[in-house]
């Protein structure tokens, strides 16, 4: 996939032409990079390249990046893959450090079709507010639709909207109520 490889451009083109998101896991470079390849020609395509670092030092290797990746695939309620969460474990100075990245497989407007009825109703509320605390969204939902919605359930729906690239969701893991949802669609 990298430019120094023979035929890597041809390979990228072939994969992008498939018209779907592709998760490409590899080793070889002994680093822990994550790269996303997109093309204006193939709007439905996206190649997510995740490189695995060395698990432990090998002889004469000066690279000091060691660790591993944990990759979680996320599916929509309609059972379609919508993204992945990459948890990177790095060994640094005798300690394990972790960091998490989330990558959406698809972008607006392709994703709008995947949103469920409930999610669309919530999207309407978010569009009115532009940026809103989750607990206020819950109050607005109750007022508009005269039904209670459970905070955990609301959190899950917003999570999915975030994966679909329709909102930006800033979670407060300790208290979902004070998480902030932001309207993303132009």
């Amino acid at each position: 996939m990298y430019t120094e490889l023979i035929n890597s451009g041809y390979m990228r083109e072939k994969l992008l032409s498939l018209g779907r998101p592709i998760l490409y896991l590899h080793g070889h470079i002994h680093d822990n990079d994550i790269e996303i390849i997109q093309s204006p020609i193939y709007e439905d395509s996206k190649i997510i390249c995740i490189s695995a670092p060395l698990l432990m030092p090998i002889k004469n290797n000066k690279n000091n990046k060691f660790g591993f990746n944990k990759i979680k695939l996320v599916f929509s309620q309609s059972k379609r893959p919508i993204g992945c969460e990459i948890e990177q474990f790095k060994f640094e100075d005798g300690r394990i450090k972790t960091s998490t990245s989330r990558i959406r497989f698809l972008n607006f407007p392709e994703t709008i079709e995947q949103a469920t009825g409930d999610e669309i109703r919530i999207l309407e509320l978010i569009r009115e507010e532009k940026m809103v605390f989750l607990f206020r969204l819950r109050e607005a939902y109750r007022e508009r639709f005269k039904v209670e919605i459970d905070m955990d359930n609301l959190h899950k729906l917003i999570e999915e909207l975030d994966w679909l690239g329709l909102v930006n969701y800033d979670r407060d893991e300790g208290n979902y109520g004070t998480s902030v949802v932001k309207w993303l669609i132009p």
Partner: protein
Amino acid sequence: MNAQSPFQYRRWESDDHHIIWLPPRFSEWEGKRSTYFTGSRGSGKTTLLRAFEWSVRLHNESLRKQIGPDPFSNKYIGVYLSAPDYITYHFVNWPKLKEKMDSQAWEEEKGRIYCLYLEYYILQLSIKAIQGLLQANILHFSPEHELQTVQEILDERPEIKKFLFKRKSKFLLSDLRLAFKFMHENLRQHAIHDEELPSDEGYPTLQMGQMLEEIASYLIDLCSKGAPVNKNKKRWMFKVCMDQAESIEYYQQKAINTMVARLGTGDISFVIAASTGLKDINDTFIPHHTLNDDDRIYTSLESIYKKEKFHKFAHAVTELRMMKYINKDNICVNLKTILGDWSINQLLDIISFKNTESKNVKDFVKRSRENMSKNFFRSRKDGLEGIQSFEDDLYENLPMEERSAPPFYETYLIQKGFTLDLNIINKEEIRAIKSQEFRKKMVSAMLCLCKEFRLPIPFAGYTMVMSMSDTCIRDFLRIMHEIYLAENCNAERFSEKCIDPKKQNEAIRKASESRYLGISYEPECHISDIKKLVDSLGKITSEIQSSYRDLSTLKSTERGIFEIDFNRLSRPEDRKELREIIQEAIDSHIIRIYIESKDENKISFRLHKLFSAKFNFSYRGAYYPVPLDSDILLNLCKEDDEQIIKKMESKEIGKINRYRNQLLLSEWGAELDD
């Protein structure tokens, strides 16, 4: 598990449904000035501190009934932290002493780092409080306000960015809260591993409390944003409530005092509570500046409950508990009606003299009944109207005699040689004799009488229950819980009844026994020493208050204030050990300091009054001082051989009795006047 009675007591930490009573002075402590509380265990420190806490003010029913419809009308956000949750002994010698640093500079550096550690914790709690109040619609700021405030904080203190987990351009309060959590834990990690704190780590070299105050101002600004126009425009403030401050080191207390002394914006104030052993409430790291009343209010809960009447406190707690238990808002409970206010002779008649077979006792009862018809006792209250005043309040005397019971203790005193013409008819003369001769001696007379005739000492009635609670609400509830269980009826019925004194007597003895057994479950390290201390002091107090062969016992109020001089112990380690045992016993509400001595080598104390039923001494505890050798006391705490303990106790009782036969200067003056 449902409570078996409305009085069932659990510590705040283990109780699910807390009942909070606010003392009348509470509003004084809600102001901008910081407050330091001291009080022994069970004096309600935690409950009081929790009454400031935002979530408790929001949800606690009993508190809301007292503070009205708007629990935040005074515009403060209380956060609660308990010292054991965040302290670690690893801080004692961390950071390490550096070259060219004298001990004073080292202590200050340790204090500064400790403050930072504390400040990050307080900031976490403060953010959590703001988020909670936002969700409760007490605060009204928008996500935009929040993003802007966090950005302002990060611009002011860019070092925090190093601890933010997420790589993004805009941050929320929750990100900031996690960063503070990480900064706090990271400091702890360094202390535990005894690692040096690198200068590029991101911890600022600021004055104690400076960072907290700077960031708190931004957070307080945020609290006012988005508020409806008609809302109270007063500026919000944080109240940081720190509990169990007795657990921290001296330099840590000094660092906290420095934070208190430095406060300048009015956006933060502290409420600090500690048991009686609070290290130092005045010393700071600021040169030539000690904390004074301008910086903080100092309040002893002991004196609050004494001054503003423990009775009022107990009544309020009983009513709140009854309301909650019965689930009714309009319950009126009168403890005096429930427990009755019995005179000594009534209690002796109902409890002690019942079912006695002894001829001696029967003769004595007969003589007492005959005295009932004598002029002097015919109208028992005659001549005593108006006497139930200052002295009764001071000495917790039981009420005047009713005609229903024979004059037992008076007959006993006459039998012991107190000459009296029972045929006097002049009311003034009767009044003088009753006041001078009988009232002061009545409890001693009862104790001696019961001892001599081998009768049980009666414990019942309102005055006795209040006195035996010894200004400790935990012990009041313990007694009432046992009385409630003994009565075995529903709570509504209980609140309307007058409980039989015999049942009360049994219940109070049970409560006393359970308090005694409870010493084994206290978490202190000197448990067996404290238990032996209680055993010995209990026996000695009982003996010296009821030695009926010695008439001097009847001449004054009850003895049993033990005066200790630590200097009599020659070895410093012994002095230290005895001090520790006594301090732990004080902290556990087992013994009570009588008068704070200015000489730190001397101390006067008595046993807690609830032990009176267990050891058979006066429900009033003791009023009169007696010396006790400190070396003997330490030996009594350490000795395992029961025979040796018995010998030591007898020896001390003998010594005290000899001492007691000598007149005190005040008595000697009174005798000369006579």
